[in-house]
């Protein structure tokens, strides 16, 4: 199995994700991600982004696009050999759902 560059650059990825998270506060509460193979058996990085309630309810599209753009600016996904997936939910939803995958 051929590993993508992302597998060997996880320290750098972690640093860049935390930088985006910090830069986009308070709209972004936290960013969780994992690296693996997707349903097509292609390598992918899946971001789960918890947004503040205000960002999620008042400007969801703008906030989501902003997070996606900032992550793409700092992480060169084609060079890392991964496809990037992004999913979003609000802080209050996550508190209600208590979903471990998003904690």
């Amino acid at each position: 199995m051929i590993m993508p560059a992302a597998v060997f650059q996880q320290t750098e990825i972690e640093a860049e994700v935390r930088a985006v998270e910090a830069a986009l506060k308070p709209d972004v509460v936290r960013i969780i991600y994992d690296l693996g193979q997707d349903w097509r058996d292609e390598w992918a990085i899946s971001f789960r982004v918890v947004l503040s309630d205000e960002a999620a309810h008042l400007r969801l599209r703008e906030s989501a696009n902003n997070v996606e753009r900032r992550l793409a600016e700092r992480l060169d996904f084609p060079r890392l050999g991964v496809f990037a997936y992004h999913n979003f939910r609000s802080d209050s939803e996550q508190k209600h759902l208590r979903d471990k995958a998003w904690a």
Partner: protein
Amino acid sequence: MAYADDLLKDAYHLAGRGGKNPRQSGLRRAVSTAYYAAFHLFIADFVAHWRTPEQRVRLGRMFEHRRMSGAVLQIHDKHKPTPVEAELMVLIDKFTQLQRDRNAADYDTGRIWSRIEVTQTLDRAGEILTAWRRVRGDKSAQDHLLSMFGARH
């Protein structure tokens, strides 16, 4: 209103049901329905060129989900994509994500969906519909549609 728009409207309706405690079944159906809005828009455009209307449904059935997102966009100059090619790149990424979400909604019963997550997925489907209608007349868009169908370069 086109079938794709009806499907997307249905998806928003499904996502909005259930007040503060939406059922997972409704949220999952919303994601799946939004995916099919985009799926059927592509198929409708492709089969519209087929001269015999009664054969278009059969032709549409030949589309395969996996092949559609696996199609590689042919860019004339990779260092300087045209505006349409750049828009197609974004559209393809959004469609791939939508396809992954639909797959999870239909088959990953352990995954929990929230309304915001689903709404954002539906918004993404809407962006795909809008973007495709903007570029569909361009040769590079039609070339890519052929690739999504499985035609080789």
